[in-house]
């Protein structure tokens, strides 16, 4: 075997290692649907709480956020459990790290927003800024872990929305939140699903 052939063979081994490591990212991109689901849930909660829906139940505006968030969490949990059972996928260390980041973010959001609401100190602009900052943190942490620029860009959008919410008017704060949800949940979620679908098609066999 000459030097060039041997170099190609060895580079092929490195590529193979990288390809197998990239499986960690595939585990995450399988969660694209979850980002879209939460984006839609945020829109429903905003619409409900601002009185866009009519009827006896929908008229209870104070229930909008708690009911929507708990229902979405249950739906997300049920669908994820079903997906994992179907795929028989093992828990990867990267997946465990990312689940930990998002779970911690969820608990932090609950621990902050629930007392804020109960204490009567909730202010729309401050709440939007807090939610956007927490979502920015979780996106940045998992984006850096996966070296995924698109997710880091989402973190930056969330942080910008947070700042805009505090410096602008109540209406500007709402618009910043709606725009950030659109790009960071809906668009990013769909992009992640496309990546997952492409990756599945690209996978080929490895022989001894």
């Amino acid at each position: 075997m000459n030097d060039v052939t041997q170099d190609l063979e060895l580079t092929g081994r490195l590529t193979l290692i990288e390809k197998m490591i990239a499986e960690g990212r595939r585990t995450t991109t399988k969660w694209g649907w979850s980002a879209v689901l939460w984006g839609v849930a945020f829109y429903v909660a905003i619409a409900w709480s601002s009185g866009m829906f009519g009827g006896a139940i929908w008229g209870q505006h104070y229930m909008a956020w708690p009911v929507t968030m708990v229902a979405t969490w249950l739906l997300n949990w049920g669908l994820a459990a079903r997906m994992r059972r179907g795929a028989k996928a093992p828990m990867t260390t990267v997946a465990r790290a990312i689940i930990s980041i998002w779970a911690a973010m969820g608990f932090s959001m609950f621990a902050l927003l629930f007392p804020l609401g109960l204490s009567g100190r909730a202010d729309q602009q401050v709440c939007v800024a807090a939610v956007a900052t927490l979502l920015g943190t979780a996106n940045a942490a998992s984006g850096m872990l996966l070296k995924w620029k698109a997710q880091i860009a989402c973190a930056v959008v969330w942080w910008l929305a947070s700042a805009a919410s505090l410096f602008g008017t109540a209406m500007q704060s709402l618009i910043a939140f709606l725009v950030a949800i659109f790009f960071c949940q809906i668009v990013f979620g769909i992009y992640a699903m496309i990546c997952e679908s492409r990756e599945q098609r690209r996978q080929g066999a490895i022989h001894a």
Partner: protein
Amino acid sequence: MPELPDLNPVVHGKLRLALLTLLTGVEEAEFTWLREKTGATDGNLGAQLLKLEEAGYVAVEKKFVERKPQSLYRMTDSGRAALSEYVQALRQLLGAAI
């Protein structure tokens, strides 16, 4: 000129290298998952996993789940060390090429 390192032949096999790399990222993995990820045939996969097991690089646990046999593979500490040494040797051999 510094002496170039030898590559561990057990790790160097394409499928065995893929299996070891996959196993570094998970706590344990089922035979079927490894087959799905590598696209290898049952026979080839079984043979390569046996070689890794004989070298002490992976450990296997066989059990029955809902009356179906299940083989769970996990990487051992020596497997992790062997892969790490292999990657270092590979980088040294390729040098400026990467």
